[in-house]
């Protein structure tokens, strides 16, 4: 008999799949072909492609500067070249194969610790580029330093720093302090939500954690001296715990440092509150919960007449969306317009990085990633449908589209493969696209003047460490600098009926709203509308200019607010705009010949990526010890997987029981493919066959083609010689070929204890043919469909339906029963040729965080969820059983990395009866379905 599923699972799991995630999972799609080059500098190997050579040269210089800086900070030299892989845009960066994980859009770069590869996208801002390069290099230096320090002193397992420290020091030693960090800490203090030292685990991995860590490091540096932080790394080997390390270095207990830090924060921020406000105190809050940003206003006529609305971006229940509400707020009505992140059409709405804009007639322009690049979309809220979509060949990323008042043009910030972020104007008449600039400056958030003569935008073209507003004359091409000063002036929006620009500026210490009246006149007037303790962003006038809507930060969340401009607003001295010349701009420095050893084409060079002596559990083999290894190149495009283990139970069958496999996977292009050879031997007891001895050797070819991030087709072909001996007759001993075709779709999103929303589908067909007779041998079908209905933030109804069927002269027997499939029944209680299983589960929150004190430390469990379930199954083929089932309740405890420990109490039942006394108990460890 052939056991197609088993072989497929073993082969693919042990060799690695042609697709990054087997069975389910979303796809990392290699849309672009990169012609990789290597630039060798004093301390780095810079990997880049020709289109981004200028950015790579600048990045190389920034990296070398950071290297010198961090050498001093860590008192450490890294004597090997650090691989730095640069992508010219976040959308290209998301295609990297250095790590298999799908990268969320808010990941600005990462360091892979095994080979210490640093991978960074250029997002258009040189300031951010510098910041992220240094941030990631802090990680590299820290790991090198800790490892070196521990090894030097004979410590094998040094204390691992907590994540808040790791990220906090990376932030502090890369950007020092920032107004953004100040805003978050100030809000935390004023809202009474200071994260105390013993609650730091509760914010692990969040942006708040980065800023809290940065604040703690800043406090340590200011209080004890920055040199003490360096000495902390020198003391690393001495400590058994991180708290002990702090005490050795700073002479204060960890708890004392925590208390002093809190006191310091209060002392710093409380006095500031005297002259500052919170958004909710000066403006009407229009949204109730979740995250809501990027408001834009428009007027629509309905049966009751003309009414003002706000369109905005919102994250609700895990997905980002575009929604609308009346100008009075969400209470008066809420409508979801565009659902993001659930389909290839709207893969990402660029929630934070891109504004949306409603035109005079209410049509909303927005950008979304769709497969290989961004698309400019227009949505008509009146007709409730998408009315326009346009992909531009020369622009891979689109941000913040803005209508002209006559609605004949849309301006946006676009990025090409060279990484340059410039303003483009799309003309509907003639369907033409015009690039206004071609430079290295970061030009963002364009907005047309009502007369259509100017586009105001935000740019760093004069100050690399800030941003100012500029007006571009569409008639003359002149650029006029409207603001100046060492600050960020962003998100300009022109008034509808007056000559005024409203924008955000942090010139006063925190992001506030300002109005610039008559910006292009000889006598412009600047007014400060808010003086917030936190921050205000994305201001926009209402249709009649009577109000300004903005997104405000308060109590660790963003909401939409409506502000009625104060006629007594503070006027700020302001100089008239000046013509900006190219000579006013900064010029980026590239790495120079002195530090540049050469450039060359990238050559594949393999090195170990994962090498470990591993223990694995297989449902058939049980626990097996084995050697697993992977050889990959720097870019992760070429991957070799090696497997060697032995299932023998005595010296005599040692050689015979040796199992080995080698597989090559190529992930360079959109079509991932692989080739492998293997030899497996095992003998075991089976419920159906009794004693089984089987030997398989052969080759496999794998291919996976993603249609989008959410779905893909897979094909594989196994050609092998198969020998099997059982107590039954008709044992095969033949060469067989087995083609397998699969289609996989996955739009699910997860919370720590399992999937909570979306859809998953896996269909697989396999058939075996004897070689060389080409005689049909057997076949198998798998259909696994799962749908998750989100009921609230943390609760959902999960439905799973699975059909496993097989046919042929020796069909596969599928097993059923146990905690993974049919709960309430012992593992593998049933087997047959056909199985249909239906699981229904209501998932709901039980405990968000459980801290159990222990003699040493504490056990911290996050996201404990409850479940009520009903299972049903039908088994037929050799037998024809009636429907059986079970129902019960249980709990799921998150163990991290999306794994759970699942406890289920169940009662068996069929359509007539409920069986047994009390409840059966099952537990399960792994990924919840």
């Amino acid at each position, binding site marked *: 008999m052939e056991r197609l599923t088993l072989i497929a699972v073993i082969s693919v799991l042990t060799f690695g799949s042609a697709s990054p995630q087997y069975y389910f999972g979303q796809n990392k799609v290699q849309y672009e072909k990169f012609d990789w080059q290597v630039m060798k500098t004093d301390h780095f190997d810079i990997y880049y492609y020709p289109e981004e050579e200028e950015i790579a040269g600048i990045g190389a210089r920034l990296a070398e500067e950071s290297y*010198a800086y961090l*050498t*001093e900070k860590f*008192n*450490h*030299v890294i*004597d090997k070249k650090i691989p730095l892989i640069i992508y010219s845009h976040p959308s290209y960066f998301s295609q990297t194969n250095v790590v298999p994980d799908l990268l969320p859009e808010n990941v600005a770069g990462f360091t892979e610790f095994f080979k210490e590869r640093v991978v960074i996208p250029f997002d258009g801002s040189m300031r951010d580029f510098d910041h992220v390069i240094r941030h990631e290099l802090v990680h590299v230096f820290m790991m090198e330093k800790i490892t*070196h320090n521990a*090894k*030097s*002193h*004979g410590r094998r397992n040094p204390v691992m720093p907590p994540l808040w420290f790791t990220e906090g020091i990376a932030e502090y030693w890369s950007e020092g302090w920032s107004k953004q960090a100040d805003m978050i800490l100030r809000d935390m203090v004023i809202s009474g939500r200071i994260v105390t030292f013993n609650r730091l685990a509760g914010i692990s991995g969040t942006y708040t954690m980065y800023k809290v860590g940065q604040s703690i490091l800043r406090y340590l540096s200011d209080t*004890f*001296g*920055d*040199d*003490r932080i*360096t*000495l902390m790394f020198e003391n690393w*080997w*001495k400590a058994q715990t991180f708290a002990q390390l702090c005490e*050795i270095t700073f*002479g204060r207990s960890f708890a004392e440092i925590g208390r002093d830090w809190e006191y310091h924060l209060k002392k710093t921020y409380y006095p500031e509150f005297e002259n500052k406000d919170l958004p909710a105190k000066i403006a009407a809050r229009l949204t109730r919960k979740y995250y809501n940003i990027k408001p834009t206003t428009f007027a629509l006529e309905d049966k009751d007449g003309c009414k003002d609305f706000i369109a905005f971006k919102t994250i609700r229940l895990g997905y980002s969306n575009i929604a609308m509400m009346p100008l009075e707020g969400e209470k008066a009505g809420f409508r979801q317009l565009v659902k993001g992140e659930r389909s290839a059409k709207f893969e990402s709405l660029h929630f934070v990085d891109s504004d949306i804009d409603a035109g005079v007639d209410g049509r909303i322009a927005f950008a979304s990633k769709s497969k290989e690049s961004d698309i400019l979309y227009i949505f008509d809220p009146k007709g409730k449908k998408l009315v326009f979509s346009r992909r531009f060949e020369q622009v891979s990323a689109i941000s913040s589209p803005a209508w002209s008042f006559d609605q004949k043009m849309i301006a946006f910030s676009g990025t090409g493969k060279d990484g340059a972020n410039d303003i483009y104007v799309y003309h509907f008449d003639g369907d033409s696209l015009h690039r206004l600039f071609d430079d290295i400056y970061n030009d963002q958030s364009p907005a047309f003047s009502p007369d259509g003569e100017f586009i105001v935008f935000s740019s760093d073209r004069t100050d690399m460490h800030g941003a100012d507003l500029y007006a571009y004359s569409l008639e003359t091409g002149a650029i006029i600098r409207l603001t100046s000063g060492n600050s960020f002036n962003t998100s300009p929006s022109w008034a509808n009926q007056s000559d005024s620009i409203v924008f955000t500026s942090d010139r006063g210490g925190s992001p506030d709203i300002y109005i610039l009246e008559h910006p292009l006149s000889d006598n412009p007037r600047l007014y400060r509308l808010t003086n917030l303790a936190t921050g205000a962003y994305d201001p926009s006038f209402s249709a009649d200019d009577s109000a300004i809507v903005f997104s405000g930060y308060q109590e660790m969340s963003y909401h939409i607010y409506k502000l009625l401009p104060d006629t007594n607003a503070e006027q700020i001295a302001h100089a008239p705009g000046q013509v900006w010349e190219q000579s006013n701009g900064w010029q980026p420095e590239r790495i120079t010949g002195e530090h540049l050893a050469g450039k060359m084409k990238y050559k594949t060079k393999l090195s170990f990526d994962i090498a470990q002596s591993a223990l694995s559990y297989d449902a058939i083999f049980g626990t097996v010890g084995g050697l697993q290894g992977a050889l990959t190149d720097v870019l992760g495009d070429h991957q070799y997987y090696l497997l060697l283990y032995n299932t023998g139970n005595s010296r005599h069958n040692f050689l015979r029981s040796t199992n080995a496999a080698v597989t090559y996977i190529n992930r360079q292009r959109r079509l991932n493919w692989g080739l492998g050879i293997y030899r497996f031997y095992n003998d075991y007891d089976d419920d159906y066959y009794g004693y089984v001895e089987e030997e398989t050797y052969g080759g496999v070819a794998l291919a996976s083609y993603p249609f989008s991030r959410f779905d893909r087709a897979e094909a594989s072909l196994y050609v092998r010689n198969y020998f099997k001996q059982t107590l039954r007759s008709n044992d095969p001993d033949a060469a067989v070929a087995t083609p397998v075709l699969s289609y996989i779709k996955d739009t699910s999103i997860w919370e720590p204890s399992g999937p909570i929303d979306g859809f998953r589908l896996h269909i697989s067909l396999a058939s075996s043919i004897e070689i060389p007779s080409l005689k049909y041998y057997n076949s198998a079908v798998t259909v696994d469909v799962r749908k998750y209905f989100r009921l609230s933030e943390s609760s959902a109804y999960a439905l799973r339906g699975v059909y496993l069927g097989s046919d042929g002269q020796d069909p596969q027997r599928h097993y059923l029963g146990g905690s993974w499939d049919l709960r309430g029944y012992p593992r593998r209680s049933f087997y047959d040729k056909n199985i249909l299983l239906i699981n229904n589960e209501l998932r709901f929150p039980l405990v968000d965080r459980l801290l159990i004190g222990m003699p040493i430390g504490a056990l911290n469990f996050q996201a404990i969820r409850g479940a009520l379930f009903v299972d049903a199954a039908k088994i037929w083929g050799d037998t024809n059983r009636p429907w059986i089932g079970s129902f019960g309740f249980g709990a799921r405890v998150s163990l991290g990395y999306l794994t759970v420990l699942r406890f289920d109490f169940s009662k068996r039942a069929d359509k007539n009866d409920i069986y047994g006394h009390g409840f059966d108990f099952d537990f399960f460890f792994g990924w919840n379905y």
Partner: protein
Amino acid sequence: MTRGLLIIGGGLALALSLACAGSHPHLDISPENYPLYSSYKGGPARAGTVVGETGRSLEKLWQIKFRLPLYYSPAMADNYLFQPGSDKKIHIIDINNGNEVAEIKLRRQLGCSPELVDSLMAICEDGPRSQLLVVNYLAGRKVWSKSTFDLCLPPAIDDGRIFWADGQGKINCADLYSGELIWSADLKERPDTGPVLEKDRLIGTLADGSLICLSRNDGKMIWKTRGDRRTNSSPAISEDRIYVCFGDGGVSCFDINNGNQIWNHADKPRLFYSPSVDSDGVYYGTGDGRFVKLDKNNGSILWEYSTSLPIRGAAAITDNAAIFSSLDSKVYMLDKRTGDLLAVNSTGGMVTAAPAVWGGRLFIAGQDKNLYCFLLGDQQ
């Protein structure tokens, strides 16, 4: 042929690694008086100066590789180097050929260079339960030990007495030979650096940023400055003046008689190592790779020399040269009058230990696990 001495648990056991017959290692050392056995920094005043010309070239004579990186400079006695390793051993090396002739195994990690006087060696063991050990290295016998309460700073030895700081906020003085406590001064604050001696005075620094001066005879406080600057390295003393490199980047000169600041030179923050001082200048290295000589009288810059990476470790100053090492894996010898480069040579990795000079030779302990010996040639 390697012989070793082994100290286990405070008791002394004899060599484990005897490679040949004989139960006792033989070291051909003729004990003489200070400064022959002075510490790497040049005596209790830790001024970093070495008497004599050192020539104008650095020729590598030999190098010896250890199992783990070296963080501290060797101490010297006659024809032997006492190199502390990260393997909890003091390796005794023949100065002429780089052969290891014996080793002293301790129980814990070492936290400073050894101090040698006569046949005795004092060293501090680092980490939890740190302690000060005095060992007779010729007899292979621990003489005595004292807990330093989780603080490991280099002791100072002079005139038959040993002075050390501990984690209870005390500076102690004991008879070097017996370990009998002579006095203990309770400072109520954790010391930042090991004590430094000059004439009848002992100078130290505390974690509250103050500089203290005690009577070396009875430990009574003579003066104490109130400051808010901390230092990571012992002061250097020369001609009744105290020179300190502070963590905030300041290099300051104080009057040893009253603690008054005479001058302050502000440099980039994060100075980690002691200044070296000779008759006309104060020398120190910075994190941005500059080696600086200040006018000893007013703190003004006389010259500076730039390297590519941070300079770590105090410098050794001879009659004609300033010698220092850097994280750029190089050893530099500058003309101390002009700052011109006289010679440069390479090591295999970063160096954070101070250079040690003795007998026309330069010894560099590197984090690349090697101890290097350079001939200071071309003497004029």
